[in-house]
């Protein structure tokens, strides 16, 4: 921006001279606008826009000058423009040529509150329906591929077992260990008051084996592997890899979806088993230090009071949780649209929805097992 650009305002009787000097560009329009806003136009009958001392105007300035002219005409003021420079006239002409388009931009319709509620409900309903149709396609057309063992993609399953479960061993065991530690520590404090130290074993055994381990494992896996399913498949959709697979006759359900679901269903019980061990181990350490229960005493009590059914109840939940996490993760991946934002959106949704689904499923299990008396 040139330093010596300015707008000179000169009054003569009822005439007003607006003399633009130097440059008018995007950067000084607002300053000129303020200067003009401060002028009282009530007694002005005619205005002369003097553009002869201008060196340069950009298109924004052209629009500014054109809109000034219009504004003054609306106020019943005569406007005349003095300008002999061809460059500036060219810019003004260009602006007047393209400022009015033949067909107006469509106006965004204001939506009523009811309309918005309706769309949200409909979209949620359509989302649920499309998830059901995803499950339908998965079951109906794809599980018949298991008619023959040749159709199972062992290599992909092995790869997914490694990627989504074996690499999660560390984080699952660490989380479970800490949860065991914390739960035991909190209850040790309470149990000591009543001198019921030994009951820490009963409490830990049942809560960890039945509920805590399966849930912790499922939540860690949903956050870690479920989200990565969504991101991977979503990216493959954006880069058209899924389209390429389809045109080559490789069904994405067989190559991408089933191996991931099967791999997770196989490994989830194993991860829960590991989580059981680590959480009990954590509890055992606290029992040893805080409540003076030796490892042998802990083990003895454990085998006495904790029946094996608690262990199996925890393990049996594994494949169900795995199916929910994997299918929601993959479904969300397939829902990704052709923009990068929707990967983030769907990944978030996949984690939230799969954790929610896992907890709902766990609640159902709880009711069923209690009613069955197990």
């Amino acid at each position, binding site marked *: 921006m040139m330093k010596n650009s300015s707008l000179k305002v000169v009054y003569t009787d009822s005439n007003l001279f607006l003399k633009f000097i130097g440059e008018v560009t995007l950067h000084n329009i607002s300053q000129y606008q303020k200067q003009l806003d401060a002028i009282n136009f009530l007694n002005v009958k005619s205005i002369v826009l003097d553009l002869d001392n201008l060196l340069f105007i950009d298109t924004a300035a052209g629009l500014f000058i054109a809109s000034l002219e219009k504004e003054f005409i609306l106020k019943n003021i005569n406007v005349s423009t003095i300008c002999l420079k061809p460059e500036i006239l060219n810019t003004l002409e260009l602006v007047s040529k393209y400022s009015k388009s033949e067909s107006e931009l469509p106006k965004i319709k204001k939506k009523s509150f009811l309309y918005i509620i309706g769309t949200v409900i409909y979209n949620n309903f359509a989302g649920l329906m499309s998830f059901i149709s995803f499950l339908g396609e998965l079951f109906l*057309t794809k599980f018949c591929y298991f008619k023959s063992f040749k159709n199972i993609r062992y290599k992909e399953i092995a790869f997914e077992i490694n990627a989504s479960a074996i690499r999660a061993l560390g984080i699952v065991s660490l989380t479970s260990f800490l949860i065991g530690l914390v739960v035991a520590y909190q209850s040790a404090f309470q149990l000591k008051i009543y001198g019921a130290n030994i009951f820490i074993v009963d409490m830990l055994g049942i809560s960890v084996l039945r509920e805590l381990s399966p849930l912790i494992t499922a939540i860690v896996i949903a956050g870690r592997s479920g989200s990565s399913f969504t991101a991977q498949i979503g990216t493959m959709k954006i*880069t058209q*890899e899924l*389209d*390429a697979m*389809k*045109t080559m*006759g490789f069904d994405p359900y067989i190559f991408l979806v089933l191996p991931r679901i099967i791999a997770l269903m196989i490994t989830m019980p194993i991860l829960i088993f590991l989580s059981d061990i680590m959480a009990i181990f954590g509890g055992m350490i606290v029992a040893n230090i805080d409540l003076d229960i030796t490892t042998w005493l802990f083990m003895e009590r454990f085998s006495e009071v904790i029946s094996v059914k608690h262990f199996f109840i925890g393990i049996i939940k594994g494949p169900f949780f795995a199916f929910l996490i994997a299918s929601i993760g993959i479904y969300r991946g397939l829902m990704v649209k052709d923009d990068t934002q929707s990967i983030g959106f769907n990944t978030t949704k996949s984690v939230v929805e799969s954790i929610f689904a896992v907890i709902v499923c766990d609640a159902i299990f709880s009711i069923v097992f209690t009613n069955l008396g197990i």
Partner: protein
Amino acid sequence: MKPLQSIIKVRDVKTIFGEKVVHDGLNLDINRGEIYGLLGPSGCGKTTLLREMVMLQKYQAGSIEVLGNNLSSIKSNEAQKLRKEWGVLFQAGALFSSLNIAQNIALPLIEYTNLSQKMINEIVEFKINIVGLNPKDAFLFPSEISGGMKKKAALARALAMDPKLLFLDEPTSGLDPISAREFDALILKLRSLLGLSIVMVSHDLKSIYDTLDRVAIIDNNKIAYEGTLKNIQQQESSFIKTFFSKGVDI
């Protein structure tokens, strides 16, 4: 001369996205052995039509017949067989990012044939040579190569099963002019070497004049023109006038 045999027949195809009508009754025929171009202003549905031809997208009415199969009523095993008879090159290549170039090309061969690993390696090397890639680059991953190489590698993958029909979606877009001309020459060479029929969507005028035998121009949801490029300038469509008025040497 052999009588022209039509391998793709498009009849009265209608496509509607939500409220937007994309195609309103398209008719065209693509003959065996020709390089056929789908042209038109942006947003006219060229790529959509191509996607409909390769069964990636459904259309609302009409019929498309590819190599004698009507896509509206095709059974899944026929569809699977048809997919092995064509190759598709996507705009950005769409190579599988978890596999390197050689594995990408080998994938259809591994999945669909009983060939030995040695034979597959030989075929892969041949395809790499024929599209003009350097064999040294065979073990690079898609993220490690340039846009032009990606397109060549994707073309090699599309050619892996020796298809008779090739679909190209904007093969020269995003390439520098030299690579683009090389790609045109490559397509012409492949056509004469392998007897391919090629359907492509293109925006590149030079490439259009150099390679295409016949074109269909889609404008205002209809086919505005179908035929050779020679008498295209006499057409009335405003798109054709602006697009072809530059007077490129034929």
